[in-house]
């Protein structure tokens, strides 16, 4: 048997590890802006952030880099930025009411309400779609089929996520009587499950359903945001189909506002240059073209709008959602 030479290993290995550690430590040491996306690479929020904030680079005095820190519905990356220095060098992108709701459900050891708003960049909304083999016509037809027992399950993203919350509001407030919520990893998995008829009804973003609808495998049934859908402008919304009014909880919860946040206590002087650069970016042809191509809605809001949005969401969600029930089910 070969005997390991401890001295050789220690001599070479420890010096190398120390060198690599020092080098890696130095890599993060710079004064430029780091944008943390607390979701996976290539997802809806990641693409949105990279496109809009990427375009803001041109109007920003300094370079902008991105990093992804996914996990726990955006809480991992958000907490990372929450704990960083409030010097304007780091921001995080999340989508109220999504990550704040995950925060309310999971109750981690930081206070998301203290985050400093930088800007709102736009929004995307949730909708209900079905497998096209069933030829579901509208919300009335869908509710009837659930009541008749033809459907009992509904597919959406993981337990405790925003889609889970929206599905509960649909059941308890709007009157869609589903029995079992089938959770999938991501929006793509949900559309795949509905297209393959593993589950016949799903909730997801309009952009995520676009390809399946265009292919004829999915039918859009109802938009859950009263402002309508940029992807399916002809799809009737829940209020147009007689299932509530604009401003109802389902309306507030189904509209994900892609926005930028700095650590608590960040000075306004450190926030304004980025907010202004983002505002200019939203008006560029490049970003407008992205909105047109992707179906995302670009709509700028400043630091005060972002702060107001977060406060509103944190006040509204506990009123319309039984957080204890979600925690118990999870």
């Amino acid at each position, binding site marked *: 048997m*070969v*005997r*390991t*030479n*401890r001295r*050789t*290993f220690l001599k*070479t*290995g420890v010096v*190398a*590890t120390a060198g*690599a*550690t020092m*080098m*890696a430590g130095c*890599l993060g040491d710079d004064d430029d802006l780091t944008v*943390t996306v607390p979701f996976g*690479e*290539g997802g809806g929020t*990641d*693409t949105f952030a*990279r496109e809009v904030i990427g375009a803001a*680079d041109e109007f920003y005095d300094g370079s902008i880099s991105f*990093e*992804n*820190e*996914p*996990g*726990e519905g955006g*809480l*991992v990356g958000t*907490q990372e930025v929450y704990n960083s220095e409030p010097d304007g060098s780091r921001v995080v992108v999340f989508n109220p009411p999504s990550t704040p709701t995950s925060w309310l*459900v999971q109750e981690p050891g930081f206070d998301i309400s203290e985050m400093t708003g930088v800007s709102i960049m736009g929004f995307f909304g949730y909708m209900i779609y079905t497998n096209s083999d069933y030829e579901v016509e509208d919300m009335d037809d869908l509710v009837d089929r659930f009541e008749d027992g033809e459907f009992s399950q509904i597919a959406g993203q*993981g337990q*405790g996520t925003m889609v889970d919350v929206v599905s509960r509001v649909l059941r308890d407030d709007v009157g869609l009587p589903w029995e*079992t919520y*089938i*959770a999938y*990893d991501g929006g*793509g*998995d949900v*559309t*795949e*499950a509905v*297209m*393959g008829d*593993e*589950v016949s009804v799903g909730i997801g973003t309009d952009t995520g359903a*676009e*390809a*399946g609808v*265009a*292919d*004829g*495998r999915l039918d859009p049934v109802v938009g859950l945001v009263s402002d309508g859908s940029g992807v399916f402008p002809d799809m009737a919304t829940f209020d147009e189909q007689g299932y509530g009014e604009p401003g109802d909880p389902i309306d507030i919860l189904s509209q994900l506002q892609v926005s930028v946040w700095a650590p608590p206590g960040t000075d306004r002087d450190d926030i304004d240059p980025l907010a202004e650069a983002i505002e200019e970016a939203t008006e560029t042809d490049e970003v407008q*073209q*992205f909105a047109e*191509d*992707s179906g995302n809605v670009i709509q700028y809001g400043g630091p005060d709008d972002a702060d107001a949005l977060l406060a509103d969401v944190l006040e509204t969600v506990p009123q319309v959602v039984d957080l204890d029930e979600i925690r118990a089910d*999870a």
Partner: protein
Amino acid sequence: MGFAAFAEGIGMIASGTTFFWLIGGVLLGIIIGALPGLGPSLGMAILLPLTAPMEAGDAIILLVSIYSGAMYGGAISAILLNAPGTAAAAATTFEGYPMSRKGDALHALAISATASATAGFMTIIVIILLMPVLVDIVLAFGSPEYFLIAFLGLAMITVIAKGSILKGLTAGMFGLMITTVGTSPMAVQPRYAYTDYFDFTLTQGIDFVAVLIGLFAIAEMFNLAGEKGGISRTGTVISGSVIPGVKTVFKYPVNLVKSAFIGLGVGAIPGAGSTVSTFVAYGESLRSSKNPEEFGQGSERGLIAAESSNNGTIGGSLVPTLSFGIPGSAATAVLLGGLIMHGLNPGPLLFSDELATTYSLYLALFIGNILILTVGLLFITRMSFITRVNAIYIIPMIIVFAVIGAYAIRGGQQVWLDVVTVLALGIIGYYMKKYDYSIIAFVLGVVLGSIAEENLDRSLQLSEGSWMIFFHPIDQPLSFGLVIVIILLLFGPFVKSAINKYRGNGD
């Protein structure tokens, strides 16, 4: 229309700077892939914002070329240093590195380039011809089938693990246990995460790329530290040339084709991806080999299986990505982000109005494979000199790459966890090897654990607790077929031996 679009696709590749981006992408991808821990998804994500000012076609071809190059590049460090550059290259280490130890690194690198490129050519042609059918096949697979594919991979432990079956199963179970750390895949429940002490650090679980880097690269550096000379064992002569390596690949045509299409098939199933496909192909190659004892000692067949399935996966993974925007892996998720960012929405339009663009993507992959073959045979094979370099220089270099790779995997709160994982698994891997616990069984457990758990849980939720969701021959024919395959795999050898014994007695 199809031919016109094909011609337009060729025009897109050949025009302006596109060809330059294709070449640059493949070469950059090879470097990214060869660096342990970096991998195609991180490499592409870093470059994604830089593509913003580029023409949409150029940007997408650059990203696809990086993806393709990186998937091949992972094999280089796997063969030369036992440090898989990508998770998909883990199976390559099992045969590629032993060949390097025997002084056959050049031969192994030639096999790797040839098998990768040939599998790429074959699978891309088939995909272009069968795209509409493949989409339906992909959609036929659901949670029960994903669970059974993962279970099939775990059942491979009985085939792949050598020596004591008990030790093999113990190693596999250990791998499965590691995947239970972190938030459970179906509920918001942290397990073994100790959030009171470590906050969110452990909620994301132990990263399996960090596990692989530690298990292979660091453990092997421990091993090398006890030897004199370089990676190629003292006394061995570095021999061989490129041509025999190329010929070797075509000596096993069934193995090559079968593995390439296992890669295509498994790669097209979202969630499974290249890591699973390489292990399934490698296991099948071992199972069907007349000389299974050669596996683990530098088997040419095993290396061909791992490399051809790895490259076959690339084309397969693009099918659900381009058809429905369903990424099958982290790398295709980034690619999907790039497509949307540049105004190319996945869906049927990519196969009608935008057909020329889709053809250009697959043509880019096809040309990329020519480049991989050329660069792989002419230049990468020359890197076999690394196996002659004294280990005293190799060890610090690999540890530096491994630690930097660990930093790069996830960043944030997980940085130290990943560094500790790499070093701890290095020690564990060294002792597992020393005491003959199967590393392959362990890796299968780590790779397949969460896929199996999540899909088992969801399947039973779908069936309201009925196990018939896996066995019903009419409602679930695919699941039923997979169950039969698993039973044959597990019990076939015993039945075969009993039948032979019976026949022997009859005579």
